[in-house]
């Protein structure tokens, strides 16, 4: 028992990861066995979103840099994996202008998603080095500009993406089990990253950009490596997302979607995995509630005009209130910890060391 407790609490965040992983798995079993079909869809979507938010946390949470391009790399993962996994005949039909060479390419879903993630990571690796040198305002504008460039290319390159039109016919591969599996693996990965030497160095450079080099941290290097890693997760999540949603267009990978991911991360607390996971859950529930309300209002005829934007309005309002009231998020940048567990371990330790000399 003490062994287990010690294992759970020795590294900050380990408790969170195991708790969340168990909750996710139990939730999936419950939802799958007894909830209505629409819930299964929401749960699957939640798991994929959680993956994306965790990938965003890796870079943004640990470096403190507002990474606008993240959602662009999600898009690259989605497009690359879908182009590879969709059969040539469907592609010829759905994307009439596609390069013939691309139409011919075909891979099973799993390698297609992996290649999508690798392409996202490779592209990140190709462009990120100079971007990582910049900080503050200039850095923010550059990353924002980079997202716009990615978006323009997605909407204009219709030989590849079908332009601004919907890309459809993607196989529905991502089941609730695959999504939960992906979320749990990402959860563990994000945690291991945060506690790794690289993650630690990145957090040090976030806390003091000017002091970090003095203890031998190459700020640009640690940022760069994490950016590439985070983009890999983005691509992976994008692939799973595409194979759940089955049809999408470039506007799914732009500012509005970035706002959702960012809100999830910031409301929970960007500094920790607990925060990212908690924020994803809270916002998913809130969004679903507001969306239901919106569609109820529109369908029931209670009010005379159509309701648009209520969901985003609610989220933006909540985000502003949180930033004013608790800028470090619900969790405040810490990992989940249970004081009573710590006390029990301390007591157990004391008993152990005192053991031989203490005649009971």
């Amino acid at each position, binding site marked *: 028992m003490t062994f287990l407790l010690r294992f759970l609490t020795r590294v900050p965040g380990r408790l969170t990861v195991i708790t969340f992983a168990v909750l996710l798995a139990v939730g999936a079993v419950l939802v799958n066995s007894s909830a209505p079909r629409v819930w299964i869809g929401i749960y699957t979507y939640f798991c994929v979103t959680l993956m994306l938010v965790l990938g965003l946390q890796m870079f943004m949470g640990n470096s403190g840099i507002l990474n606008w391009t993240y959602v662009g790399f999600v898009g690259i993962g989605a497009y690359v994996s879908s182009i590879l996994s969709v059969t040539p005949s469907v592609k010829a039909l759905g994307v009439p202008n596609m390069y013939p060479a691309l139409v011919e390419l075909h891979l099973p879903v799993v390698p297609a998603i992996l290649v999508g993630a690798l392409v996202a990571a490779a592209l990140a690796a190709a462009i990120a080095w100079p*971007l990582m040198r910049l900080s503050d305002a200039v850095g923010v*504008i550059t990353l924002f500009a980079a997202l716009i460039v990615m978006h323009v*290319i997605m909407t*204009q390159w219709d030989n590849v993406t079908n332009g601004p039109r919907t890309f459809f016919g993607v196989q529905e591969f991502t089941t609730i089990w695959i999504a939960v599996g992906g979320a749990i693996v990402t959860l563990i990965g994000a945690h291991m990253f945060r506690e790794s030497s690289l993650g630690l160095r990145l957090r040090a450079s976030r806390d003091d950009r000017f002091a970090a080099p003095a203890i031998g941290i190459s700020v640009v290097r640690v940022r760069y490596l994490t950016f590439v890693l985070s983009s890999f997760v983005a691509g992976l999540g994008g692939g799973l997302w595409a194979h759940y949603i089955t049809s999408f267009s470039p506007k799914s990978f732009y500012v509005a979607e970035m706002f959702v991911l960012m809100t999830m991360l*910031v409301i929970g607390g960007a500094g920790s995995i607990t925060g990212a996971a908690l924020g994803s859950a809270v916002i998913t529930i809130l969004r679903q509630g507001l969306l239901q309300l919106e569609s109820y209002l529109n369908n029931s005829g209670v009010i005379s005009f159509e309701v648009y*934007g209520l969901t985003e*309005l609610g989220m933006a*309002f909540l985000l502003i209130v949180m*930033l004013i009231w608790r800028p470090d998020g619900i969790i405040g940048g810490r990992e989940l910890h249970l004081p009573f567990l710590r006390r029990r371990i301390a007591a157990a330790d004391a008993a152990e060391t005192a053991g031989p000399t203490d005649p009971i």
Partner: protein
Amino acid sequence: MIDAEFLINTLSLGSLYALLALGLVFVYGILKLVNFAYGEYIMVAGYGLFLLGSYTALPLWVIMILSVLLAAAVSYLTEIVAFRPVRTKSLTAMLITSFAISVLLQNAALLFVSPRSRAVRLPAAFSQSITVLGVTTPLRNVLTIVTAIVLLAGLTVLMKYTVLGIAMRAAADKFTTTRLMGVPANLVISVAFIISGFLAGVVAMFWIGRSSSVDPLIGFAPLLIAFIATVIGGMHSLAGAVAGGFVYGLLFNMLSILLPASVISYRDAFMFVIVILFLLLRPEGLIKGSYTEERVG
């Protein structure tokens, strides 16, 4: 290619972009905040035109003035309600706040007005043409240039010859030290937001004058232009922002002419690649200002 028409078009576009960039840099200079909600002040002015024009019988020029003032008021309001409480927190918190305000205002327009674009009425002068230097051009273009000259002159006087202006320049240079002179922090920041909103409101009149309609997402394109122009000119000085606006106007018109038709749809991407290269090669912009990176605490 360089004829009188090109010149007038470029000057008018440049004037508009210069005002646009200036509004963004006023706030950046003092708070070091890249205000993502800046475009929404333009949208607000547009909806001012629409609502006042539809529901009141005021003369059009009064409606225009009120709409510009509305943009300034909303800018001020966002400062005291949202930015002031997070000012001492991290820069990222402030950036995300500005983004959230942007989303909030956009969706408020979506929810309370309509997702569809709304027609607005503007004075007849906005749709008339005039012949100058042998070129027939929309009167709007000439009005833009004249407005920019008047506003730039006015702001120059304000910044150079009034105590408030001196205090604002000082605050952009060293914020804490400015407070040690007895200048209230909230005063300079509020004034910066009011000027910023005012400039956005003025830009809105001409921006909306081109299409005579307003929609919830109308602020996004001008925001991007303001970003590009400030980056080209330099985030660190007001003169740089103005220069950046004119250079961007020129660049935009040249790319429109020079790029072959097949890649014209990539013009925005080209512009942003230029921005990124500019930031990487010359992060201080064309005009190196003296603003420091000191954050307001």
